[in-house]
């Protein structure tokens, strides 16, 4: 057992559901007890999704346990096939139901007989893999399923697209700024004259997966999701993969140069150097910012970075290489892929921390006292407690990571957004320090005077006790209204009873 207050990556079934519900017209059946189906809430609330989440819980309760699940699961799959006509139904257990060690594969086979769409069991060990690993696996499983199906049917397309083209792999629902990254990458590809063959899984149809081999190469922008799929495609279809995350000015250029190499090797003759130079120096503002006086003032400032592999590695490199900021510690919670991370960042930071234990990172931050943190929501709150500003750069996702405004992390606009995030984190911290130095924001009488009614009313101890139970942000108002109420009625002492009588009367 592990004592856990906070976890960085979710359980495996969340990963599978993120993949399944990213596709268009794919439905997932969760074989799980009541309450395990909060994925639907996350998608609806965090992503403000307008559509019903295509995930149905086949509820496991005491009765089902007693009688066996097979009938219920098969019924639910067949029912959903009939009701929604999905192209594919993915069945997944959760940590809980996977313990039952039922032959879920067999349930699927049974359900397939009466279903028009495909039925598939997500093949993941729920105790060995976390959300990210399961997502990577499930995406691979679905892609492989449809490519093999097409091959069997002789429906695999021949050859490549006429113009250079790309599959962008790994864009999912509930991904950290995935929607805006996806837009930015599409724009970048358009600028490079590269056709987007497919984007998967977000908004893709499983029926289009068979077209993937037509692309000249695969682009896997995130380290966490898509690598297995790209490896499979490389193995089976000899498709080259570009896996440099285009985040920050330097790595965006590296990514584009790799693309150039890959497509020129296939007969194209492109030279992206002028484009890179123009974007770097004049279109994006990030390189200029690096050279500007504002950034000079950040030189040597100290930062701690923590997050998933993709974002923590990219941020570490940007801070250190592009902005001259001293990264005291770079860390990731992707323990299963620690070697990759260490290779990426060890030249750019003093220390590497690989851990899923948030107490460990909290203690490290407290000891190191950086001027700013770049981490997850957890580190943001550690920073709040320690009075250190924190920019959020990685999942676990939070509603704040689904802004309506355009905020990609990738590409040239992403590099601008990152500069804003970094700069504002440091300067907001600086502002608070300056205010401290100049003795600012002490509540001056001039202002507080207007906030508290002058009163010769007394509060009884029980009245005060009740008042103090009221949250600070409305307490002032309740206090004033109660005092007004008491004055109007010539009540000299305000007891708990008076407080509630006032509440009833005034309705606050």
């Amino acid at each position, binding site marked *: 057992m592990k004592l856990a207050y*906070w976890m960085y990556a979710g359980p495996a079934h969340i990963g599978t559901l993120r993949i399944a519900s990213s596709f268009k017209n794919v439905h997932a059946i969760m074989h799980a007890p009541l309450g*395990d189906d909060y994925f639907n809430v996350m998608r609806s609330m965090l992503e403000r999704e307008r559509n019903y989440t295509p995930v149905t819980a086949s509820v496991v309760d005491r009765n089902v346990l007693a009688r066996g699940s097979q009938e219920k699961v098969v019924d639910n799959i067949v029912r959903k096939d009939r009701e929604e006509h999905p192209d594919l139904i993915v069945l997944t257990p959760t940590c809980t139901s996977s313990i039952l060690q039922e032959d879920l594969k067999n349930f699927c086979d049974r359900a397939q007989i009466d279903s028009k769409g495909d039925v598939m069991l997500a093949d993941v060990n729920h105790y060995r893999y976390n959300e990210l690993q399961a997502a990577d696996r499930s995406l691979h499983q679905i892609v492989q399923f449809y490519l093999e199906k097409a091959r069997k049917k002789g429906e695999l397309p021949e050859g490549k697209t006429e113009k250079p083209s790309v599959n962008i792999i790994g864009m999912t629902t509930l991904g950290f700024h995935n929607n805006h990254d996806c837009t930015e990458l599409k724009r970048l590809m358009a600028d490079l004259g590269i056709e987007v063959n497919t984007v998967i899984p977000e908004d893709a149809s499983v029926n289009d997966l068979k077209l993937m081999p037509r692309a000249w190469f695969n682009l896997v922008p995130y380290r966490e999701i898509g690598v297995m799929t790209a490896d499979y495609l490389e193995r089976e279809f000899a498709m080259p993969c570009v896996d440099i995350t285009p985040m920050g000015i330097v790595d965006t250029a590296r990514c584009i140069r790799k693309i150039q190499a890959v497509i020129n090797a296939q007969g194209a003759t492109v030279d992206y150097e002028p484009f890179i130079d123009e974007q770097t120096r004049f279109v994006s503002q990030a390189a200029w910012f690096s050279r500007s006086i504002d950034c000079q003032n950040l030189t040597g400032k100290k930062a701690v970075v923590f997050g998933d592999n993709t974002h923590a590695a990219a941020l570490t490199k940007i801070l250190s290489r592009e902005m001259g900021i001293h990264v005291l510690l770079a860390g990731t919670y992707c323990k299963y892929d620690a070697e990759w991370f260490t290779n990426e960042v060890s030249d750019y930071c003093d220390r590497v921390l690989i851990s899923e234990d948030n107490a460990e990172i909290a203690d490290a931050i407290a000891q190191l006292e950086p001027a700013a943190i770049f981490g997850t929501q957890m580190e943001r709150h550690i920073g709040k407690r320690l009075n250190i500003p924190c920019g959020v750069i990685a999942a676990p996702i939070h509603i704040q990571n689904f802004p309506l405004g355009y905020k990609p992390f990738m590409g040239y606009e992403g590099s601008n957004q990152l500069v804003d995030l970094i700069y504002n984190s440091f300067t907001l911290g600086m502002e608070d320090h300056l205010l401290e130095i100049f003795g600012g924001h002490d509540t001056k009488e001039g202002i507080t005077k207007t906030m508290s009614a002058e009163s010769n009313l007394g509060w009884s101890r029980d009245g005060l006790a009740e008042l103090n139970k009221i949250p600070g942000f409305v307490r002032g108002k309740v206090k004033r209204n109660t005092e007004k109420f008491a004055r109007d009625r010539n009540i000299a002492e305000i007891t708990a009873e008076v407080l509630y009588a006032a509440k009833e*009367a005034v309705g606050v």
Partner: protein
Amino acid sequence: MTLADTQPSALNFECETGNYHTFCPISCVAWLYQKIEDSFFLVIGTKTCGYFLQNAMGVMIFAEPRYAMAELEEGDISAQLNDYGELKRLCEQIKRDRNPSVIVWIGTCTTEIIKMDLEGLAPNLEAELGIPIVVARANGLDYAFTQGEDTVLAAMAQRCPTKTPVAEAEKEERNSISKLLNFGRKKEDVLAEQSEYKDHPPLVLFGSLPDPVVTQLTLELKKLGIKVSGWLPSKRYTELPVIEEGYYVSGMNPFLSRTATTLMRRRKTKLIGAPFPIGPDGTRAWLEKICSVFNIEPTGVAEREAKIWESLEDYLQIIRGKSVFFMGDNLLEISLARFLIRCGMTCPEIGIPYMDKRYQGAELAFLEKTCEEMGVPLPTIVEKPDNYNQLQRIHEIKPDLVITGMAHANPLEARGITTKWSVEFTFAQMHGFGNARDILELVTRPLRRNDALKGLGWEKLVREEANH
């Protein structure tokens, strides 16, 4: 037993046993750890449970709360590790870090399936650790959402002392309510005040309510000369109320049937079966029922109710004649429907995860009576509804307001159906006369909002083909 034994006959009950969504009962720790200030809640479950809690609790996670996961790993599931040893290690750490007065073990679906014997392990560890360990099986196999509280209170009911432990003076100290009410006053005044109370058998109220509501209801009863001897749960575990055989008890919430049963069967108390004090109508009915049991005249209660209704008029104008549909989530549905029908709404369907017709008997009767008096059709009550089927019915009926869980609110709004999260009622201060406004503030907010937006013509925010 004072349970109302007239079963309402006219109400139409259905049980769809469908696939429906509600929060996992372990979420009860969200409000219980705050309520019982010296407690620590340890949820023994999987990463799935932990990730749910983390997402459901939001900012509370960051506030160093007094709850945590005992996350079961592969070795625990395959029984390679010793449960006792593992739990001991964790509880020792909790003792070191927080030193709580009680540790509540929350069993989950997984501990059920792997048949972890929490009840068997607890007494030994409790003895070894020196901290009481209360075990509650708040699992999703047997319970829904708010019933998690029921399992915890039922377990705690068994830990309430049977006798005042020492001197009478100290008993006063034990009881936080009387302490609060007497604080700072001279002993003579306190004694003088005791005489304000009528003579009646001891009464203990059960159900976790926010502290201000506890005070309000205690004061409400005091006005009638009725003294509340204690609340379950108390603000501190060390202040659990004394419960002796023959005490009267009354439940504050519709989802506490197991606690009620425990108090009756194990602690030999008498349950006062009344409608719940939700809405001015419910509050009055609840007060009158207690008075009737104690043979006390409920002076001024009817007038209080009338005055509250008057003060609600601005809100009533917004909802009168409108329809409300409950998809079913937190077991507060019957009481809320009854209050809203009294407010002038109609209600075609009440979904509810679980229906204990005995424990909710008085409330069901009151619902039926309310419908009759208001001249509106009786709602259909659907136990364990099927959400898919409900959505079909909603799109057909087009109710003015749907009270629903979080999973369906945004998609319904995008299709022009006005919604309110049921979960907000779980956390709202809504019991008693004084808080009726708060319920209506919640209920009317989406109506007021969508009314304000109506002129802008953005009703349908999904494309036609996706309209469903």
